[in-house]
Every structure is written in C-alpha cells, then in structure tokens.
C-alpha cells in the first residue's frame, strides 16, 4: 500500500514494475493515469495549478486505500498524486491495484480513482491561454461515480 503526494512527475512504467516486483501471487495489475487536458469545455487551457491540504490529503488517501483493501483481495495498491503548476499533457495522478485475478484489480482501480476524486482534498485552478484563472467546480457526475460504490457495496 503506497501513497505519494508530490510536485514532481513520476515514471509510470517504473512505478508499476516496482508495485508487483517479486510478488508472484499477482495475476493482474490494473492502472489509471489522469492527465491535464488542453480544454475545459470549449475553452483552451494554458495551465492548471493543483492545491492540496498537506496532512489531510495523505490521511484521506490512506483511508481510501484501506477501504479498497477491505472490499477486494488486493496484493498491493498505489496512489501517486501531484500538486503545483501543471501543463496540458502532464500527468496528474496514477492509481493502481494488483490482485490474483483481473476482476478485483479492475474494480479496485476504478474505485480508487472514483473515491479519490470526491474525497481527497485537492483543488484545481485552471488558467486559460490569456491568463484568466478559475477554480474548477466539483461535478455531479463525479459524485454519482463515487456513489455507485455505496449502492453496489
């Protein structure tokens, strides 16, 4: 179970290799990478700044991982989330879940990112190409995505 909250970029390949290295009980590893898009709706985006709540962020991510491990038989999980100023194409987040079988790995991976999006204290400030900045508003669709894990669970 690994949590990293950092400004710097990460190497997806190296992180995934390290996650299951030496664990031959793992039959499936599922990962999700979130990237900065170049558009917000119809508006071109120049950059994005991610703010977070140091301390609570790590605590929330540990709780989300623990919840995933309660629900699925996981060998290992990983959450890396960046903060600071990012540009279109930059990686924001990597979540991954490893299990003996693919079903648990797929579901747990989706659960991790859905819960992270609605529970971990991060906020996105988007800058348009001409330098106007606006805080991204939380979306109902993200709440719905997180909520379905309650109704199914």
């Amino acid at each position: 179970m690994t949590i990293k909250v950092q400004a710097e970029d990460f190497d997806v390949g190296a992180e995934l290799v390290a996650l299951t290295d030496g664990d031959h009980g793992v039959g499936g590893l599922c990962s999700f990478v979130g990237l900065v898009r170049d558009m917000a709706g119809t508006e071109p985006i120049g950059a994005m700044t991610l703010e977070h709540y140091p301390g609570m962020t790590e605590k929330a991510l540990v709780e989300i991982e623990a919840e995933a491990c309660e629900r699925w038989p996981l060998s290992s999980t990983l959450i890396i989330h960046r903060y600071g100023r990012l540009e279109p194409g930059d990686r924001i987040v990597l979540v991954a879940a490893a299990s003996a079988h693919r079903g648990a790995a797929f579901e747990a991976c989706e659960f991790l990112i859905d819960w992270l999006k609605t529970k971990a204290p991060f906020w996105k400030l988007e800058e348009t190409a001409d330098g106007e900045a606006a805080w991204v508003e939380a979306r109902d669709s993200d709440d719905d995505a997180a909520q379905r894990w309650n109704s199914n669970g």
Partner: protein
Amino acid sequence: MKLLYFAWVREKTGIGEETITMPEGVTTVEDLVSWMITRGGGFEAAFADKSTVRVAVNQEYAKIDWPVTDDDEIAFFPPVTGG
C-alpha cells in the same frame, strides 16, 4: 484553535492560516461558521453560501453539528476537484 482556508475560500478570506482563541458561545462547526460571517468583509463573502463550503475538524470531514474545541485544527474549503 488553528484555522485553515483553501482554494477560493482562501482567496476570499485573504489568508491561508490563522490561530485564534475560540470565540465565546461557539461549541459546534455551525456556530463557528456563523461567527465567521459576523467577521464581515472577505469572511462574510467566503461563507455567504454555506452549502458550498466543506469543513474538516482535525483533518476529518465534519458535519455541521460536530463539536469544536480550542485545540482543534479546522479547515474550510470548496468541494474537492482532484484526480
């Protein structure tokens, strides 16, 4: 008590962090939010629509009726948008 503000709540209040003595008459999260509004200016603006502000007490999401004490770390922020 230590108070923290994030994202647009921080921008409206004009500060990221402050330490205050718990105001008289405040015992719950709701009392504290009501007191914030009485401070006027940027604080009044930040808490004008209470439904848009989330509260954490000691780094846990808190409901409006949660108790608060002078030893707590209390944070105010908008709904989260990471990932």
